[in-house]
């Protein structure tokens, strides 16, 4: 044990370079001739080499790990920023579409002949669409004031192909067939009207932009209407 202790001290002094010339020469001679001593010296050097490398590599690995962690953090942050920007753009787009639709859906100010202007307090002849089945996909519904007991629509009513038109007539009229002709005199629509019914709903798309005439079969009143875009 004592010898081993001495050998360790000797090796450390040699590694320090603190041996005298004679001591160093003796050390080298012993290395060449004493296998146990040579093995102890070799292991000491290996230990130092491996310890040194292990420490240096740990430090390099820590540097690499910190760089990787930092890069991953940066990538995640960038991804979040892009995601937030994309969400904002989507929200803005959705908002724009909603706003556009709500303004487009505002009912048009259309008036029958006796309703000359909205300033007179008359209600517009069109009503805002309320999703009822009979209106289907149309935006405007053309309907006459209930109090007016006359034919509707008439030549003063502005009609569009996309309107749902509620045809109305005087309650006293008791005819069964409502007919619509085009300007060439061709029958476009013939509708059967049940007894005591005083209105007929014509869905959009039936009347294209053109001049039409509507009347009840066997009735003399022929009313001109114009559908335009």
């Amino acid at each position, binding site marked *: 044990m004592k010898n081993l202790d001495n050998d360790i001290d000797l090796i450390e002094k040699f590694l320090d370079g603190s041996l005298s010339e004679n001591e160093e020469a003796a050390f080298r001679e012993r290395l060449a001739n004493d296998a146990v001593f040579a093995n102890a010296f070799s292991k000491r050097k290996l*230990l130092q080499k491996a310890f040194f490398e292990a420490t240096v590599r740990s430090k390099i690995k820590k540097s690499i790990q910190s760089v990787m962690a930092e890069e991953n953090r940066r990538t995640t942050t960038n991804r979040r920023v892009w995601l937030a920007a994309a969400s904002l753009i989507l929200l803005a787009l959705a908002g724009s579409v909603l706003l556009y639709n709500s303004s487009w859906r505002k009912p048009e100010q259309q008036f029958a002949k006796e309703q000359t202007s909205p300033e007179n307090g008359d209600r517009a002849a069109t009503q805002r669409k309320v999703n009822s089945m009979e209106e289907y996909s149309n935006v405007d519904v053309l309907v006459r004031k209930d109090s007016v007991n006359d034919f509707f629509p008439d030549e003063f009513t502005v009609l569009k192909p996309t309107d749902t038109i509620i045809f109305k007539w005087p309650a006293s009229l008791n005819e069964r067939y409502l007919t619509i002709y085009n300007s060439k005199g061709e029958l476009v629509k013939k509708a059967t009207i049940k007894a005591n019914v005083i209105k007929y709903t014509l869905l959009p798309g039936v009347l294209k932009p053109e001049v039409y005439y509507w009347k009840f079969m066997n009735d003399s009143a022929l009313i001109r209407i114009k559908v335009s875009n």
Partner: protein
Amino acid sequence: MKNKKPSPLSHLSNLGYNKQKYTESEILEGVKNNDNKMYRFIYKSYYPGIKSMVVGFHSLALDADDIFQDGLVTASRNVMEDRFRGDSTFYTYLTSICRNKCFKQLEQAGKFRPANPKIEISEEPAADLEDLIYRLTVLKDKMDEKCRQIIELRFGLKDGIKGQNNLSDSGSNVRFEEIATILKIEPDNARQRFKRCLEKLRETVFNDRVWNDLLATTKY
């Protein structure tokens, strides 16, 4: 004095555009100096390719991050020690090292038996010494902080990585007088403390079965 104006496109770097490119010699110089900027470049440029290579093995035993880190550590040390001769690009060299690490890990997991046992590329140092170094990394973590510190000082690690690159027979050990000054103790105390700690390290290492198994097959 003129202030250096930032490049008008510098902000694009943060967004992943305008990527900085380096020449081979710049990469090697950066790695040699343990430059974080260069590690960042290597990670951003080379990691995706190496990850694809690791994923290509279709094995849960392999972790792309670990393989890349260990591979880059080995490659960097080889560059620092001038063991990399520059016969290929650094990327090719790094990929080869990483591939070898994959083979090795699969072999250890019993999932791979190489047809040609010599799969390591010629520029890589003896693989067994790598294993010894890795094992010592584990073992030295078991030591207490004071012992680790004095051993690191004695082995010339006080200046970090650049402190000592090539170990010769008689040099590269810091004298106890210098260690004593750093630790503000007497040289004899430093010598005694080191001796005690080295003995602990010897016991830990040379009584370790894995270390001894590796040592039996290693040329050092």
